[in-house]
């Protein structure tokens, strides 16, 4: 009996041990104990030749060693969430509004850095951006994140089209909506197997017929997404909110706005009607199209909407699949096409950031490293482009050329992007190079009256969730011009949103903007 009992106990222990082993997996890696080594998490995959760059860095760097963990984009959000909420010791992590930044900044997971930057101990890091940019990137009153940005914009919106077909139908270089429509009509009439305009399900017509945010800003109006898009009207002194109206409003709703906006046409209503008219240029199944780029580059679509950042990739892909095709570029915005000053609105906010978790005990060493990266072109280029002479060669002051066998590709947005140190490929066509240089020029931008404002929705989660669900019911279809009478659809959605707590969102938005403006003007 006793022997049997022992056996049972032994079997049970074995089972518990086995379960324990299974439960034990998934533990993370801890911080290294060395006080000169900082633990870093970057998004992306480790560049080929990274160890050579690290060796060179150790040789010429500031004496701070790096222990870098690379996390692929698909895993980044979860990994960041798990590692940091579990309180693991990282000294520097990549984060962004599309990852966890908004929540983590609100929850105090990151160190507030404004005093460190202002201390003057890190002059090169401080000089990386102007004071306006530093201020605009505060989250909830503190600098929780160091932006990685080269330009104030989000790239130059453009339509890529088949220049060979435009030439074939006698349209030539497209530089206006009229010419673009002629092109689309020609394709529709003469190329039965082609889609005139290929769009992705998620984006629809995207930046086509976009609203004129610079004109808005000059009239103290800002377009914001807060449970649907709305236009916020500030008083002339820009000290407080005068009115907030959601898109799709009636002339009565817009009574407080300047005359030319009152019919709502400039606030998106004309655009949505235009999209319904242009729906005929899309494929029937556009709402299920997963990859517009693929159908354009494969020759099934005659044009697509994107921005100039992807020019090199688009051109080489198109050349690979259709050697006879020629790529044309139509810069959508008139003022941008003519490279005018103050052509685009900017919030001065970055899309990519570096953060120091509040658990870090090596804040000074980490900032010393960042200061070194921005201390000189050489330091910066070592990370962004690799070893000079092997991975790349400098061409003049702002270009580089790559040798045939170059493999080093560093995702600059995780560390090195900065307006002071930009190099372009020397293979860009002259006009694209000029547009890209214009994109970097701060004179090309008009600052938004609400630059730096971030809407904190943590207190109105229930309302936001309900309203987002209502607005998302139609938003994609509207962006595809797929619903007849779009303004009526918007108004119906608005009415429903009102019943589900949008008033609360509106009041909260108004309150937060007024607080923001009061703070800004007090400084």
């Amino acid at each position, binding site marked *: 009996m006793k022997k*049997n009992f022992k*056996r*049972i106990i032994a*079997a*049970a222990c074995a*089972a*518990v041990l*086995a*379960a324990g082993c299974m*439960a034990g997996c998934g533990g993370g890696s801890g911080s290294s104990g060395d006080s000169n080594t900082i633990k870093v998490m970057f998004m992306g995959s480790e560049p080929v030749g990274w160890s050579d760059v690290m060796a060179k860095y150790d040789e010429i760097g500031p004496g701070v060693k790096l222990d870098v963990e690379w996390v692929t984009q698909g895993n980044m959000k979860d990994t960041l*969430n798990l590692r*940091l*909420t579990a309180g693991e010791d990282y000294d520097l992590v990549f984060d962004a509004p599309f990852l966890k930044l908004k*929540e*983590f900044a609100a*929850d*105090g*997971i990151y160190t507030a850095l404004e005093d460190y930057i202002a201390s003057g101990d890190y002059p090169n890091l401080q000089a990386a951006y102007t004071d306006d940019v530093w201020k605009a990137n505060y989250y909830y009153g503190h600098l929780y994140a160091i932006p990685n940005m080269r330009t104030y914009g989000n790239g130059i919106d453009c339509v890529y089209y088949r220049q060979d077909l435009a030439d074939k139908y006698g349209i030539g270089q497209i530089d206006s909506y009229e010419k673009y429509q002629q092109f689309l009509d020609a394709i529709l009439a003469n190329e039965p197997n082609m889609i005139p305009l290929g769009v992705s*399900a*998620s984006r629809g017509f995207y930046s086509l017929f976009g609203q004129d945010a610079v004109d808005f800003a000059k009239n103290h109006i800002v377009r914001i997404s807060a449970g649907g898009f709305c236009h916020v009207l500030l008083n002339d002194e820009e000290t407080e909110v005068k009115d907030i109206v959601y898109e799709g409003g009636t002339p009565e709703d817009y009574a407080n706005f300047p005359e030319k906006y009152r019919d709502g046409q400039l606030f998106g209503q004309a655009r949505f009607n235009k999209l319904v008219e242009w729906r005929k240029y899309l*494929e*029937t*199944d556009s*709402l*299920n199209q*997963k990859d517009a780029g693929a159908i354009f580059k494969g020759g099934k679509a005659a044009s697509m909407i994107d921005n100039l950042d992807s020019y090199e990739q688009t051109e080489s892909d198109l050349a690979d699949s259709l050697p006879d095709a020629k790529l044309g570029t139509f810069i959508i915005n008139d003022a941008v096409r003519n490279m005018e000053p103050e052509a685009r609105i900017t919030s001065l906010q970055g899309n990519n950031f570096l953060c120091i978790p509040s658990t870090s005990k090596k804040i000074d060493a980490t900032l010393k490293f960042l200061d070194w990266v921005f201390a000189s072109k050489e330091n910066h280029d070592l990370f962004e482009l690799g070893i000079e002479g092997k991975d790349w060669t400098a061409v003049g002051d702002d270009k580089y050329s790559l040798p045939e066998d170059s493999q080093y590709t560093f995702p600059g947005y995780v560390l090195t992007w900065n307006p002071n140190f930009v190099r372009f490929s020397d293979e860009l066509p002259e006009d694209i190079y000029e547009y890209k240089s214009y994109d970097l020029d701060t004179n090309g931008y008009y600052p938004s009256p609400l630059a730096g404002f971030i809407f904190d*929705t943590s207190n109105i*989660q*229930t*309302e*936001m*969730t*309900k309203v*987002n*669900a*209502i607005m*998302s*019911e*139609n*938003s*994609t*279809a509207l962006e595809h011009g*797929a619903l007849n009478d779009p303004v009526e659809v918007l108004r119906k959605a608005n009415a*429903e949103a009102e*019943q*589900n707590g949008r008033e609360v969102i509106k009041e909260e938005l108004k309150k937060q903007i007024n607080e923001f403006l009061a703070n800004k003007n007090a400084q």
Partner: protein
Amino acid sequence: MRAGTKKKDGQLFVKPTLLQDIRRNKWLVAMCIPAIVFFIVFSYIPMAGLYIAFVNYKPSTGIWMSQFVGLDNFKFFFTSKDWITITTNTLFLNVLFIASSTVASVAIAIMLSEIKNKWTKKITQSIVILPHFMSWTIVSLFSVALIASDGLINKIIVGLTGDPSNAIAFYNTPGVWPALLVCLKVWQGAGFGSIVYLATITGIDQSIYEAAAVDGASRWQCITRITLPLLKNTIIMLTIMSVGKIFYGDFGMIYAMVGNNSLLYPTTDVIDTYLLRSLQENTNMGMTAAIGLVQSVLGFILVIASNALANKVSPESALF
């Protein structure tokens, strides 16, 4: 043998106490321990985390230190006007899925069991099971070739009728989607689901069929009078088990097929896709946990109810 019932010879079966039971079957109980430990560690202990549904969860403070908000996390769902549509969609689609998959699985199992040639049987079985291993993302990509407006199905329709206006714009027509999703579900799962039924059929005593054949029963009569009645318990058991998940839309499938195509929401928006849509901008662990809890509790109630129903109608096929 159910406790307390009478044995055939009339002798009363005395229900043993738990301890007696364990002592008598100690080796069987010992073999259960790994499973019991597994469920305690991975299913029961984590249930404590359900508390997250009642707090305003902040990762920095942790679940237990976050502010308690009562039922606030449930509000957004039950006060939205869509929750009834969405819940109905979820139930309707799942009832269709369960019913059609069961019918198809049983039919496939019977057909497979009737095939006598060993090779034909093996090959057919492999082919019908294969779709189960295909991910919905892949299915959604190649289904475009079938149901796009210039896809195979529309080419056939137009070819047969000679009139392009007969083509169906599947991606713009919500009405066809319940049927379409059911077809895909059956195509994907029925073959795999037939395995259990096939195993049950294989276990049926062959002498019953021989006796029936001697009495002059046709093949069809053998199926309807012997195989189907003997499959009844398995069918009821598997149905009760799938009822437990009836409040979960098949997210992997529906989101892969429909994506953000809002034109199709009226018939395809289920609880899970609605949650994704309303919370993807402002992720909130408390709210998602709250709805997950609602889905589980409702599923649990349905399982209990359907088991009770089974107990009443045909006691031997009830799960417990």
